[in-house]
């Protein structure tokens, strides 16, 4: 089997046994990129080949000096292009930061580098992570490897497509309202949004600070746990990162079933608007989980129907504040057309931001403006409390929840581009976990008749990633979805 088809753990085992060198690994991945990237367009920047080859050769040479290999050593990992990489441009998919070269690494990137992992490139995203299709990138859309006419989901669409198309062994994404889970579902791969505070956000370009979270996008659940082991932990540079013990997440897989676990099925996630094929696939998955020893129980999350409104008020309000920093002074674009400072600000932001980012800044600014703050922003904050309480109540009687990830499989490019509200409504099943800060993982659970992947979501209690990882892995091992590969042809 070709090297690029292996999971991270399989590849790591071969490397550890000395069956394959770091150089052979990176060479295989650069070859794969040269054969499919023109179709998929997963990357904004592919790392310089000669530099990476030299690094890999250096690693192979000094390998004898290492007493043992590290879990991510020599693994080609892609990074979403809103996570800072020292010396490697970080664009956020925006004209505003087209030439921005961070002077520092994000904490998660530092952790990867300490593993001697290979940063193979920076992946495409909706501008500043605002979108559900990766069409809102200033550098053009990414395509779904399963069907090039369709979107890969978003905003981490580049990361999900790169993993699905074997252009990297694993990737990092960021999730503010579903931006890891939804593209993972669209591309038939695994996407984990950890509990808010589990992973440091230092060096993640801020979109909505009370919601943003970094997480892995991988070929299987095992790989997600391996990456989370490296990413998780308290970071003094992010005061919202949680000071809680970090277990070895791969130990969650000692049990290969879900015996004695109570599985909540929220009725609100199976109502109107759910595509019939998605419903069928998720229901079939529930039966598998039942056979694996789980006890299904209907639960209610009564405020699910207002999650979209709540999220899009809070996230845009935070974004309007976070994106105020793009003023043409410290970094990024500066407009040439101005007479004075105020005009420089306004023109810079006009020229640097794309339509979706402007729309969200406008919405968020409105929600925070005098006369509307109470009715919109403060109201949404109160409803967020109710949404969180819904989960608290549900988790008193069940151990985790099962839902669809998205109401439909991936949609066609352009299909929702002119209708922002329709695009927002596609996020209905992923937003609530973000608002409540709980961990959630999306994994494949089937295919539509058109051949597009369908995803299932496991949501767990705060800081209980182990439970959803165990259940997701048990389901993954009991099914064969991962064996199916995207039909993309090498050039």
């Amino acid at each position, binding site marked *: 089997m070709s090297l690029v088809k292996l999971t991270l753990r399989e590849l790591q085992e071969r490397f550890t046994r000395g069956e394959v060198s770091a150089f052979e690994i990176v060479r295989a991945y650069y070859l794969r990129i040269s054969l499919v990237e023109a179709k998929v367009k997963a990357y904004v920047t592919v790392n310089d080949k000669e530099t990476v080859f030299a690094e890999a050769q250096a690693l192979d040479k000094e390998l004898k000096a290492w007493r043992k290999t590290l879990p991510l050593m020599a693994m080609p990992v892609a990074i979403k292009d809103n996570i800072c990489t020292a010396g490697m441009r970080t664009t956020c998919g925006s004209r505003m930061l087209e030439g921005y070269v961070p002077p*520092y690494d994000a904490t998660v990137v530092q952790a990867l580098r300490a593993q001697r992992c290979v940063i193979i490139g920076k992946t495409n995203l909706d501008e500043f992570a605002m979108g559900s299709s990766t069409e809102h990138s200033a550098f053009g859309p990414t395509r779904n490897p399963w069907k090039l006419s369709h979107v890969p989901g978003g905003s981490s669409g580049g990361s999900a497509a790169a993993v699905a198309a074997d252009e990297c062994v694993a990737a990092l994404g960021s999730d503010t309202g579903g931006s890891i889970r939804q593209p993972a579902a669209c591309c038939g791969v695994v996407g984990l949004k950890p509990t808010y505070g589990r992973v440091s956000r230092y060096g993640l370009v801020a979109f909505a600070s009370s919601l943003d979270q970094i997480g892995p996008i991988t070929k299987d659940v095992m790989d997600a746990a391996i990456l989370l082991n490296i990413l998780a932990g308290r970071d003094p540079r992010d005061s*919202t990162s949680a000071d809680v013990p970090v277990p070895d997440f791969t130990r969650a897989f000692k049990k290969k079933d879900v015996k004695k676990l109570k599985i909540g099925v929220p009725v609100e996630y199976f109502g109107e608007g759910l595509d019939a094929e998605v419903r069928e696939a998720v229901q079939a998955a529930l039966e598998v989980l039942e056979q694996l020893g789980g006890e299904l129980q209907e639960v209610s999350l009564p405020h699910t129907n207002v999650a979209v409104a709540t999220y899009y008020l809070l996230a845009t309000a935070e974004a309007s504040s976070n994106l105020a920093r793009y003023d043409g002074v410290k970094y990024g674009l500066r407009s040439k057309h101005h007479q004075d400072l105020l005009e420089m600000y306004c023109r810079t932001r006009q020229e640097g931001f794309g*339509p979706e980012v402007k729309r969200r800044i406008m919405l968020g600014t409105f929600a925070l403006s005098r006369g509307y703050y109470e009715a919109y922003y403060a109201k949404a904050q109160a409803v967020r409390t109710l949404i969180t309480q819904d989960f608290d109540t549900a988790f008193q009687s069940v151990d985790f929840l099962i839902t669809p990830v998205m109401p439909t499989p991936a949609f066609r490019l352009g299909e929702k581009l002119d209708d922002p*509200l329709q695009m927002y409504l596609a996020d209905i099943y992923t937003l609530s976990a973000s608002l409540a800060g709980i961990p959630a993982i999306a994994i494949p659970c089937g295919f539509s008749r058109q051949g597009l992947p369908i995803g299932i979501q496991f949501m767990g209690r705060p800081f209980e990633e182990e439970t959803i990882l165990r259940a997701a892995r048990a389901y993954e091992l009991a099914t064969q979805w991962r064996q199916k590969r995207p039909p993309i042809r090498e050039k």
Partner: protein
Amino acid sequence: MRLSEAEVEHVGALARLALTPDEKEAFRLQLSRILTYMDELRVVNTDGITPMSGMRTNENVFRSDEPQEAFPQEQALANAPDSQDGYFRVPKILRDR
């Protein structure tokens, strides 16, 4: 909630966005539709509910106030669109008399 032209103008100014007339009209229509959808929040009873501004961390996070290594000036200015003598350079703020 329907937005007027004047409101869009006002919000655009607050957000420091020099919007074109076409953008203003498109945003007026789109945001009106989105805000109308969001009005469904009004029916949710939130009496006595504490608003949530962040995650459930009720403790403050302190650190000692000690000097630490920071970027050298050159590096901090490396991405600046314009700089001079170790400073960020911006257009003139005060008008000539």
